[in-house]
């Protein structure tokens, strides 16, 4: 069997509204909890963007160091961060007004 890399679906395939978590399961004892839980804001970022945020925190927020590690120019990395900031602001707006 080929291993499929699953990623967390973030928006409704039918109407594109942000999705919520309605059930969580424990694989050890088969317990399921259900309710309606908001996905944390960071979990709503795409996998790539989230990785960027993690790298950013790991480098103590040094874009210069990140640029060096990624082999990219400073403004390229800076623009990436600015785009993620804009994305986060958009997500925040979407969550507030359902």
């Amino acid at each position, binding site marked *: 069997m080929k291993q499929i890399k699953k990623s967390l679906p973030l928006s409704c395939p039918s109407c594109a509204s942000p999705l919520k978590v309605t059930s969580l399961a424990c694989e050890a004892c088969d317990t399921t909890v259900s309710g309606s839980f908001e996905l944390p804001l960071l979990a709503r970022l795409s996998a790539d963007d989230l990785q960027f945020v993690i790298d950013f925190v790991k480098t103590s927020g040094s874009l210069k160091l990140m640029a060096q590690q990624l082999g*990219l*120019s*400073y*403004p*390229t990395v*800076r*623009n990436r961060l600015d785009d993620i900031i804009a994305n986060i602001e958009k997500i925040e707006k979407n969550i507030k007004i359902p």
Partner: protein
Amino acid sequence: MNTWLLRPFTYIAGGKALLAGWVIMLITSVVAYFSKTHFDGAIDAHIGSTVTPYYIYLLETLIAWGCMVLACYAAAALFARTSFRLIDIAGTLALARAPLLLAALINFAMPARVDPTAIDPMVIVFALICLPVFVWILVLMYQAFSISANLKGNKAVIIFIVTLLVAEVVSKLLMQFTLPLMLS
């Protein structure tokens, strides 16, 4: 390779680009002096027959680059919604002029020294051979502006074209007034 030729500023900008750009600009001005190529404008090249001292070639390059940097900085200050650095604008725009070295070299192959203002077949041949070089420089200059100010899409293209025209006019005027003063 393709990304390095067309989108080099994804990988290099800031101080490194400025240093590399300046070195290439210096070499280009020397080559231009020997092949009598004038880069007299933000994005201009003319073949000239007039005897001109070396420092005029260097000044032309510096004025053309400087005007473009100032115009792009002003445009970024007006339209960029995120922070940007002058060093990135100056660096990427310096490196964007690197293909001019090719234009200066190509001019060695032009046999006759002609009056640059006349519509001479040699002038047309030079213009046609250099056309891809100038398209390349335009693409690079746009990338330089776009990456430095984080502006993308149609809006960025329109802002860039206006900025380029302003830089062209200002650099032309500056050269017209300052260079004769230096020569007299």
